[in-house]
């Protein structure tokens, strides 16, 4: 009797201790988010609303909204974002629809290739396009040398060039989101519609499209934000009347303190806008939340002969366009002194030698920092996903909102926020956090957290609660249950989410460009520095290495998930 009572008490005590341990972890996660996400943002807004003398003011915003150039930049940015959403929709939706609903030769290959354009690192895409489509690019050289054109056709220099680059870079985001959403539509709904005579376009508008809306909205939001936050592409084609470009240009020139302040204000405005769009999108998606939907096998229709040809031609031509920059990058990374000829006349390996053997730091740092980033993502992200999926702890809704918010935050804004927040020397250290290389994996960890959280969350939802309950009923504690039951079932989701975090950490340049510590540059920063330093070939070589790394990761994801990997982006 007595013995059993002691055990019960002991168990209860153990339970309490576990709960305390769990709670401490939970608080740890919150502390991490508070320090590395919330505080920098607050600091940025504080700076935007104060003068250098720390007095509260609206003048900074007044200056912004009365300056016609900034207003024009704001309008241009919004228009460019909307324009890119439209063009990526026009390409991405049919792409997703065809891949999902129809059978045609090479479907799996197309499915894999359609994601590849997304792994184009910033700056590299536009460089590649200029090599092929620029004023002295392959196409124009051929037109002038063989077709008697006296002037080059202007494909790239101007806002239309930015639109082309963004569209062909980002349409996979749209495709992925749509594939994910459409994949959840039960075929029975289709059948029901058909049984009452709804077919073709009518059925698409009445059934398929509304059900796909949540996925579409999140895809559209991502496309919008990426375009909105990109400053590298416009700069290459000589456009600077965009918000992101102005934020970057103003902040990197420290001399004119007024412009510097303006850089802070612009990034604050960009972040506010991102939050606003997020709220609007959330509201819209929540209205149409079809929680009853579940994944189901979709029967693919086969096409007529001409239909097959048409589909393959359409998909191939989009992909050929999307792969133009890859061609440009390959040619320029091997070609020496390439100017005014369709393809380089001399070839060399010297650029690869310079960026990989002579200065291996770019590649090594990239792998190291992205590795640490993934660790941060797992250590922080998996528990967050678990809390969201399995507990009713207070604050979990806020956690959800915060992780979604991170997706929407423009990298330039985060980078500037960190610059302002962590510039004072740390206690016990002589340097400030922004003077240490760890700031890069930290900011990357925060920026790429959502992918791990979402990957894990999606897997957790598929694992039925009853498995865990069964384990707990035979006495396994929560950690043991997690380790022995849940983890083996969800590791794929965690891995895929982490791989996405890894790829995107490898490629990130907007926040890290502002934060990188000299001597600790990673590949995207190297690309930027080489490009800005006039060593375009080296930039291309480094870009190609980065593309190959990204494609390898993507291939691995593809193998693990069997070609279906949309959820992490929603």
């Amino acid at each position, binding site marked *: 009797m007595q013995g059993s009572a002691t055990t019960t008490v002991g168990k209860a005590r153990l339970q309490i201790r576990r709960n305390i341990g769990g709670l401490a972890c939970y608080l740890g996660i919150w502390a991490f988010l508070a320090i590395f996400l919330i505080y920098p943002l607050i600091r940025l807004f504080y700076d935007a609303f104060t003068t250098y003398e720390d007095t509260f003011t609206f003048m900074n915003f007044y200056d912004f909204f009365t300056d016609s150039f900034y207003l024009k930049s704001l309008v241009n940015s919004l228009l460019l974002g909307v324009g890119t959403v439209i063009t990526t929709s026009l390409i991405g939706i049919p792409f997703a629809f065809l891949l999902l609903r129809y059978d045609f030769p090479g479907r799996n290959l197309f499915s894999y290739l359609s994601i590849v354009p997304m792994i184009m690192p910033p700056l590299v895409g536009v460089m590649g396009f200029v090599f092929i489509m620029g*004023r*002295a690019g392959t196409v124009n050289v051929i037109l002038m040398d063989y077709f008697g054109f006296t002037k080059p056709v202007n494909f790239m220099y101007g806002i239309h060039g930015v639109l082309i680059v963004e569209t062909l870079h980002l349409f996979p985001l749209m495709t992925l989101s749509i594939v994910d959403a459409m994949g959840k539509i039960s075929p029975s709904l289709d059948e029901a519609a058909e049984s009452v005579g709804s077919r073709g376009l009518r059925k698409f508008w009445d059934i398929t499209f509304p059900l796909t809306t949540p996925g579409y909205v999140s895809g559209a939001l991502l496309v919008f934000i990426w375009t909105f936050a990109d400053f590298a592409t416009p700069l290459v084609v000589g456009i600077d009347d965009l918000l992101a470009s102005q934020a970057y240009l103003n902040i990197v020139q420290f001399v004119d303190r007024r412009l510097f302040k303006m850089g802070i204000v612009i990034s604050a405005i960009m972040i506010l806008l991102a939050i606003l769009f997020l709220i609007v999108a959330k509201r819209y998606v929540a209205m149409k939340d079809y929680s009853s939907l579940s994944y189901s096998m979709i029967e693919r229709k086969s096409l007529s002969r001409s239909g097959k040809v048409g589909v393959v031609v359409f998909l191939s031509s989009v992909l050929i366009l999307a792969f133009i920059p890859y061609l440009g990058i390959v040619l320029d990374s091997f070609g020496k002194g390439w100017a*005014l000829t369709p393809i380089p006349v001399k070839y060399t390996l010297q650029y690869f030698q310079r960026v990989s053997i002579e200065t291996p730091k770019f590649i090594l740092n990239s792998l190291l920092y992205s590795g640490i980033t993934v660790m941060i993502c797992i250590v922080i992200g998996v528990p967050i996903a678990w809390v969201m999926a399995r507990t009713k702890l207070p604050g979990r809704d806020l956690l959800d909102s915060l992780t979604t918010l991170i997706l929407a935050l423009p990298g330039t804004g985060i980078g500037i926020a960190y610059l302002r927040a962590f510039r004072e020397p740390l206690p016990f250290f002589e340097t400030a956090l922004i003077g240490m290389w760890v700031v890069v994996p930290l900011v990357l960890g925060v920026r790429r957290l959502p992918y791990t959280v979402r990957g894990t969350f999606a897997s957790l939802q598929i694992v039925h609660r009853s498995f865990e309950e069964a384990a707990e009923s035979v006495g396994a504690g929560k950690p043991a249950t997690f380790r022995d039951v849940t983890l083996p079932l969800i590791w794929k989701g965690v891995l895929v989410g982490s791989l996405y975090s890894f790829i995107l950490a490898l490629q990130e340049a907007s926040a890290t460009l502002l934060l990188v*510590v000299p001597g600790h540059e990673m590949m995207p920063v190297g690309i930027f520095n080489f490009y*800005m330093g006039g060593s375009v070939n080296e930039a291309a070589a480094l870009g190609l290495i980065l593309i190959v790394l990204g494609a390898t990761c993507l291939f691995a994801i593809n193998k693990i998930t069997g070609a279906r990997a949309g959820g992490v982006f929603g």
Partner: protein
Amino acid sequence: MRKVRILTVLISALIFCCWGSVQAQPIENELYLITPVSKDVHDPVLKAFDEYARKKWNIQVKTSAIPKGTPVAYGQILEWKGNPQADIFWGGEGTLFDDLAAQGLLEKIQLPQKTWDEIPASIGKPVPLPLKDPKGFWVGTMLEPYGIIYQPKLLKRLGVEIKDWDDLLNPKLKGQIAQCTPDRSSSSHATIEVILQTHGWDKGWAWLTRLAANTGIFTARSRDVPSVVAKGEFAVGFGVPSYMAFAEVLGGYDVMYVYPTNAYLTPEPMAVLKGAPHPRAAHAFIEFLVSEEGQKLVSQLGVYPITAKYKVQGPPGSNQEKAVAFTGGMRSFFDIPVGNVYDVKLAGEKKRIEEVNAYFRKEITEKHKDIVKEK
């Protein structure tokens, strides 16, 4: 457990990386520059310094450069507030160095008296351009003109010849000129000042507006100008430092250089930052650069020696001879009459710099589309 292990690894990695060498050596084994001088020049020079240090002291020096445009570098140094993450500031305008010295952010140069004296105090007429700081806070390292570059094949196709500034206003060059805005590039800024001081404020801006009418792109940084010209994207580059374009020649591209009347000339000043983490390496680096070995090295890169003692000269086919051909036969700035209208006292004032940049931004870049349409 795993978390703990990961944390341990992280912390030890952190300590390892923050822990610099503190042994008493003739120079430290690290050296960092912050510089607008492009990679084409700072890379080979840093590499040569590493070799030099290995030979002289048997010390391997880990070097790196933070590439920043002059105004940005200057602002960054102010931002560091005497706790710099770099040892040396290299390049840009002497007045910015004077500013930094006045704010106590520079250390005095430590060069042997003889070496110091060999560098002339100034060059050029009617306005003499200082080549070193009389107070000793900075020293010129090489002479470098900011002029015009062009892609010969494209220019021939357009049927245009370029000998001096005014040739850039030829309507045949519409959309063919690449330049950088003055707030992003000190070479553009200086060249614009040359135009303003040649023609006077109003006529100068009228000239620059006509130039804008021919301009096809305002690049993100000055180093992009020679890149896009070398590539053939644009035919002509405005306000380009000679070495930047010469780097393209060394890279296998076809570019030619014009040294126009009164073109801006810079001694590329160099200074050691106050509180530099590696001061001894920094001083050793400066001494190396102005030595015969250092000057010989830079003369292969499309710039000119800082003293009359050395000339750009080498065996046939050498980089030196290529550089001489590229600039139309020049071997030393001390052989030719050097015109200079650029007045540091006028142009170097902070207020004037901001005024020029703001005017350019308001009247040229923001109205560029309209200017192109009108002309």
